[in-house]
């Protein structure tokens, strides 16, 4: 029989009718939309038991306490530790994305010699050779750590020199070191007892010091109050985040902080607003006023406002002797609510100049900010977890990223009390990484390891029998019956806090008024920490909000 065109139509009609009564159309519809809900190319979070652990951030010298959520052994969430007495559960914005950094595209994954992949053994050989041929300079960004001890003692044993690249906060304290002979690393600000704080462009609410300390303090004592308990006066050339929140914003010409400080000092002395200490500033009030672009009367008015509610403390954003001198005039040095000495422990350090002549090799620890670029023809060994680019270094050595190694957390700069803590490793290293300290130990096995130094520091703390340990609960050191117990407690990311120093520890006299220095511009979260890259999320959010420009070089 012959199949006609009509048969085909009829057959098709029958098939179509039948198909509607099969699962085919309906199940396909369902499955396809389920497919769109689980597209295989869309990454999903790791499965696995979720745990909450404690550690500290070592991405900048402040060392804030972290509450870290981990899943399947990887950090998946960062928050502050509210029980910590110093950081009080607060963190800088960048910390919340820090756990992403270990997978940052700019992560240094292998040893690189002049850009080409190399090996640790080659690097070791090259460094050992360099040491035998001439002096080495070792640069540290966070002195006072166990690792620092290793670096320093290596330098000592191999006629090298150990130098420190200081944070802006510490540099602001340097003038006091030269006047009092006390290391800037054992000086701090007694913010909690100051009633008036005059900040010369220091980003007090935007990347200065430990956010949990000043930001919380300001929020509790000043925010939104017409007559605050803590008066924050911001002297700055632009309406920065800090200026916009300050009790008073004094809008001055760029770069006139020093003149302003000197002018204020003169006004204070001339108008007998302070019991005059030390020499008179050379600059006249009118000169200071015209330089900083405000009227003389306004300057005098400001001087009166400043001393109206003592104790008063002036804070510079960076190394600036005249602002330091203003503190001397105000009698803030060594006083309640002023610049205080927190410990007798730390010695002085040679600041790391960019100019490094006649060194055979320069070793730069990963704690040194990427911006620090040694101007030297020496062979440069740079430990770093992320490659910021645009920097000359012969050896690029992959260091630990975020929470990838055990380290200890010394004092935060500007802290008024001595502290010590241990930051356990919480993230498995993915590549063959080594810290500068481990590297040096492998070069010279007679050096103590980081673990050893931490151990002996704990012993020391135990034998001093002073201070308190803040963990799940608060315990005086005297309560511990063995150094091991103390160390074990600290290894759980508890914090040891020393007893506050007796007042009047610090004496400071000025012989003559210090010379003017060009004040450096202030910085913010994005520029204070030492990693050359930002968490991808931070870059994204800065780009998508009007808060601030994301620093161009720190891109995803």
């Amino acid at each position: 029989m012959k199949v006609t065109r009509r048969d085909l139509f009829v057959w098709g009609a029958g098939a179509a009718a039948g198909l509607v009564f099969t699962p085919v159309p309906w199940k396909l519809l369902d499955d396809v939309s389920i497919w769109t809900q689980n597209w295989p190319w869309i990454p999903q979070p790791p499965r696995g038991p979720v745990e909450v652990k404690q550690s500290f951030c070592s991405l900048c010298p402040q060392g804030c306490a972290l509450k870290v959520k981990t899943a399947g052994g990887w950090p998946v969430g960062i928050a502050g530790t509210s029980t910590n007495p110093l950081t009080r559960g607060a963190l800088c914005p960048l910390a919340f994305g820090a756990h992403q950094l270990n997978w940052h595209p700019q992560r240094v994954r292998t040893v690189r010699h002049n850009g080409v992949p190399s090996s640790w053994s080659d690097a070791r050989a090259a460094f050992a050779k360099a040491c035998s041929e001439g002096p080495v300079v070792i640069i540290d960004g966070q002195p006072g750590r166990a690792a620092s001890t290793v670096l320093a003692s290596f330098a000592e044993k191999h006629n090298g020199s150990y130098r420190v690249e200081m944070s802006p906060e510490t540099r602001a304290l340097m003038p006091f070191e030269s006047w009092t002979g006390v290391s800037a690393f054992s000086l701090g600000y007694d913010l909690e007892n100051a009633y008036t704080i005059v900040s010369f462009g220091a980003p007090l609410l935007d990347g200065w010091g430990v956010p949990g300390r000043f930001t919380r303090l300001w929020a509790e004592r000043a925010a939104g109050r017409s007559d605050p308990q803590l008066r924050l006066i911001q002297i700055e050339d632009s309406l920065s985040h800090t200026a916009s929140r300050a009790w008073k914003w004094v809008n001055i010409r760029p770069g006139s902080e020093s003149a302003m400080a000197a002018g204020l000092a003169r006004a204070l002395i001339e108008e007998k607003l302070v019991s005059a200490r030390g020499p008179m500033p050379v600059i006249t009030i009118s000169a200071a006023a015209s330089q900083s672009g405000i009227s003389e009367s306004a300057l005098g008015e400001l001087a009166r406002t400043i001393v109206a509610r003592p104790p008063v403390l002036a804070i510079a954003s960076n190394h600036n002797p005249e602002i330091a001198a203003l503190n001397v005039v105000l009698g803030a040095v060594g006083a309640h609510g002023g610049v205080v000495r927190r410990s007798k422990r730390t010695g002085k350090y040679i600041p790391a100049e960019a100019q490094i002549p006649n060194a055979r090799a320069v070793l730069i620890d990963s704690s040194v900010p990427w911006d620090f670029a040694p101007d030297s023809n020496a062979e440069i060994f740079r430990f770093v977890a992320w490659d910021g680019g645009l920097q000359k270094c012969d050896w690029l050595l992959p260091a630990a990223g975020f929470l990838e190694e055990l380290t200890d957390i010394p004092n935060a700069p500007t802290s008024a009390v001595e502290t010590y803590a241990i930051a356990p490793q919480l993230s498995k290293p993915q590549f063959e990484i080594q810290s500068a300290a481990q590297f040096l130990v492998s070069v010279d096995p007679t050096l103590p390891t980081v673990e050893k130094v931490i151990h002996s520091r704990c012993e020391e703390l135990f034998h001093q029998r002073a201070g308190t340990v803040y963990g799940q609960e608060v315990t005086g050191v005297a309560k511990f019956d063995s150094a091991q117990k103390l160390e074990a407690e600290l290894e759980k990311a508890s914090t040891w806090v020393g007893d506050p120093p007796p007042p009047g520890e610090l004496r400071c006299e000025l012989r003559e008024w210090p010379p003017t220095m060009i004040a450096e511009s202030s910085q913010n979260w994005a520029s204070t920490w030492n990693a050359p890259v930002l968490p991808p999320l931070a870059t994204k959010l800065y780009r998508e909000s009007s808060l601030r420009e994301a620093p161009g070089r720190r891109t995803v």
Partner: protein
Amino acid sequence: MSRNSIVFGFGLAVALFSGWVLFPRALYVNQHQPIEFRHKIHAEKSGITDCAQCHVFRDDGEFAGLPSNDTCAGCHSDRIGTSPAEAKLVESYIKPGHEVPWLVYSRQPANVWFSHSIHVKRAGLNCTDCHGNLGESDQMHLYQVNRISGYSRDIWGHSMSRLGRVPGDGMKMGDCEDCHRRHGVEVGCLGCHQ
């Protein structure tokens, strides 16, 4: 006319056959468990009576789901029987320390949040209410994965028509909703999604 109806009926029959018989075979891929695990044997031989003996709750209330190696290693740190399945478990997973890549019949997608604590500890459901008699089964049934959605067939249920399903057979959202409706428990979308 009769010719027409025959042709029509023929088309109808072809469609029905391919839709109900051929289509499911094309849609699902058969997969086999890495190890021939047998609940029944374990219940009989080792006297394990309670699911929670192996499928434990963590201290924080989170359900651990399938037991990890160390649970199995509690007995099988070394071979204690003769079965090849056990041999495989010990030699290729426990000793080298690799977790067993079990195929989970009730695996839900990442956007589902399900708390065993809430359903078992608070609402007092039994394992069998959702997982059926998997616990008494002599051996694991065939694991079939949907080519398109990647779900286990147990989520849709074994009958394509979704008729006459028993507990453990069919774990679509609708099934959760039915039970919630029956018990008058109302949670919003994000009550069960994340």
